[in-house]
C-alpha cells in the first residue's frame, strides 16, 4: 500500500506554503511515495538504545562575548526587499494572527 496519499501531499504542500497545482499533486504523490517507501528502510535498523546524532562536531558551549559589532545600514538591509515603505519591509495583509513566542 502507498506510504502517502494524495490528500497528505496536499496537506504537506499547505504546511510548506507551496501553492502546488493539481497536476503537480498527482506527480508528487507518486514520487513522494516511492521516496518514502525507500527511506523507510531506516526502520529496519534496530536502534532503540542508540543515541541520535544531531551534530557531527564534538563541540559544546560555543559562545560569543556580549559586544556590539557593526551591522547593515537600513539601505543595505532593505536592498533586496521586494517591497518597502517607511524604511520597513512591506507585506500584504496578514490573515493568521501571530502564533507568538
Amino acid at each position, binding site marked *: 500500500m502507498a506510504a502517502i496519499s494524495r490528500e497528505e501531499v496536499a496537506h504537506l504542500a499547505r*504546511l510548506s*506554503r507551496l501553492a502546488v497545482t493539481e497536476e503537480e499533486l498527482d506527480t508528487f504523490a507518486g514520487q513522494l511515495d516511492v521516496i518514502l517507501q525507500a527511506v523507510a528502510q531506516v526502520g529496519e535498523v534496530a536502534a532503540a538504545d542508540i543515541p541520535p546524532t*544531531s*551534530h557531527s*562536531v564534538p*563541540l*559544546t*558551549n*560555543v*559562545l*560569543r*562575548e*556580549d*559586544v*556590539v*559589532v*557593526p*551591522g*547593515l*545600514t*537600513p539601505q543595505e*538591509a*532593505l536592498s*533586496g526587499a521586494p517591497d518597502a*515603505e*517607511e*524604511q*520597513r*519591509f*512591506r*507585506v*500584504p*495583509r*496578514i490573515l*493568521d*494572527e*501571530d*502564533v*507568538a*513566542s
Partner: protein
Amino acid sequence: MTTTLPAYDEVVARYEPVIGLETHVELGTNTKMFCGCPTDFGGEPNTRVCPVCLGLPGSLPVANKAAIEATIRIGLALNCSIAEWCRFARKNYFYPDMPKDFQISQYDEPLCFGGYLDVEVNGELVRIGIERVHLEEDTGKTLHVGGATGRIHGATESLVDYNRAGIPLVEIVTKPVPGTGALAPEVARAYVTELRDVIRSLGVSDVRMEEGSLRCDVNTSLNLPGEEWGTRTETKNVNSLRSVERAVRSEIIRQASVLDAGGRITQETRHFHEDTGDTTPGRSKETATDYRYFPEPDLVPLAPDTAWVAELKAALPELPRLHRRRLQEQWGLSDADMQSVLNAGAVELIEATIAAGATPAGARKWWLGELSRRANEAGVELADVGATPAQVAELQGLVDAGKLNDKLARTVLEGVLAGEGSPTQIMTNRNLEVVSDTGALTAAVDEAIAANPDIADKIRSGKVAAAGALVGAVMKTTRGQADAKTVRELILERLGAA
C-alpha cells in the same frame, strides 16, 4: 453579551480555579541573542539589523554568553536545576516578523527546570512551581496599516521592522497552580510581581511591562470540587500587573457562566482588553499547529559545567522577599508601613539614606512625605525627584542637630531640589539657621509684649493659652528662624506665668 454574568464570590464558592503563567522576559544584554546587533529600545526602523537577525541566506547564529549566564542566574534564583547538557531547537512556523520563518527556542531540553518561587499573599506564603526556564529569540515588530487603530483585522498591508528580532527572550513557565480558590487572581498578580522583582534584583532586565520587556500569558481552568481539572484557556496580551489579576478574574467568571449554561470550555487563545477588562477569543485554529521542532543544527549543545554554575550561584543577590523581610525588621516597621514603603518604590532610597547616616524614621519621613508628594506633582519616579539619599541624610542631620526646624528644613529642601547645593550650603547662603541666641530672642519677646499689652495682661492673669498669639508675633519678627518652644517659655517667664 446579553446574559448577565455570575458574581465572582459566588463562582469561586462552587468552582475550583487552576492557574498557570507563562512569562517572557527580554534580557538587557548589550547585543542580540545570536548576533552583535545592539538591543537598545526604540531607534529608526531596521537600523539595528545584520545578515543574521534579518535571516539572510547563508547567515549563521552564535549564542550570546551574557544571555546564557543571565538565564542560568534566573533559573538559580527560581530554585531550578540547571541542565548539564541541552540544545536549542527550531520552532517552525511562517510569520513575517520571524526573519527565518522559524524561531530558535528550546523544546524538550530547557536550560533550567524544576524550580519554585514563594510569593506572599495576605501574609500567606504560596509556593509556585516552576516548570522550566528557557532561552529563545524575540520577533520583529509588525505595523498593520489601513485597518482600525493598527489592528490586524481590516488592515490592507503590514510593515515590518526587525530591530527587535533576535533580542534574547527568557521564557518562564509555571507548573499548574491549584488550590488557591478565590485568591487565584491575587496569587497570579503576586507571582508576576515577585518574579519581576527577582529578575530586577538580578539586574538582567528592566522588566517593564509597559515597554514589553516583561510579557505575560495566563492559563485558567475551572473544575468542580473532587473532579479533574477543566479545559484551560490561554489569555494573551496581559500588559500590566493589574491586568494579570483582572484577566484571571474575568476568565474565571466567563468560564463559570459557560459551564453553568451547560456548555464546554474550548481550549483556545484569548485576548485580554485593558479597556473592558474582559477577554475575547483569538482566531481559533481547528487543528493545533505542528511546529515540527528539531535540534538547531547551526548551534552546538550547551553544557554548563558545575564550576561555572557554582560561580554564578555564589554571585546571586539576596532574594527581594528575604531582603525586604530583613529591612522591615531592621527599620522596625509594621507590615502596613513596609507596604507603603514598597508602594512608594522607596526601599532602595531609604536604604541608601540610612547608609548615609540618617535614622530609619528620618529617612522614611522625607521619602514617603515631602519627596513623594513632589514626585507625584512632577509626575516622576521617586528616584528622579532631584534629591539624593546623601542630601536627605544631611538635611535630617541638620534637623536632629536643632539647626533647622521642620519648616526651615522644607525650605532648604526646596533649595536642594532647585539645585542650589548641599543642605548646609543652602542653609548658610539663605541664612536659614534657627536663632538660638536668647539675647536676641528676649528683645523680640519684649517687643511683642509691648506691642500687645492686652494679650500680655490675659497671660499674666493666667490665660496661658493666649501666649500662642505672642509666639506667632515673635516668629514673624524672627522670620520663623526661632524655636517656637523656646519663645513660648521666654514669654511665660517674662510675664511671670511660668
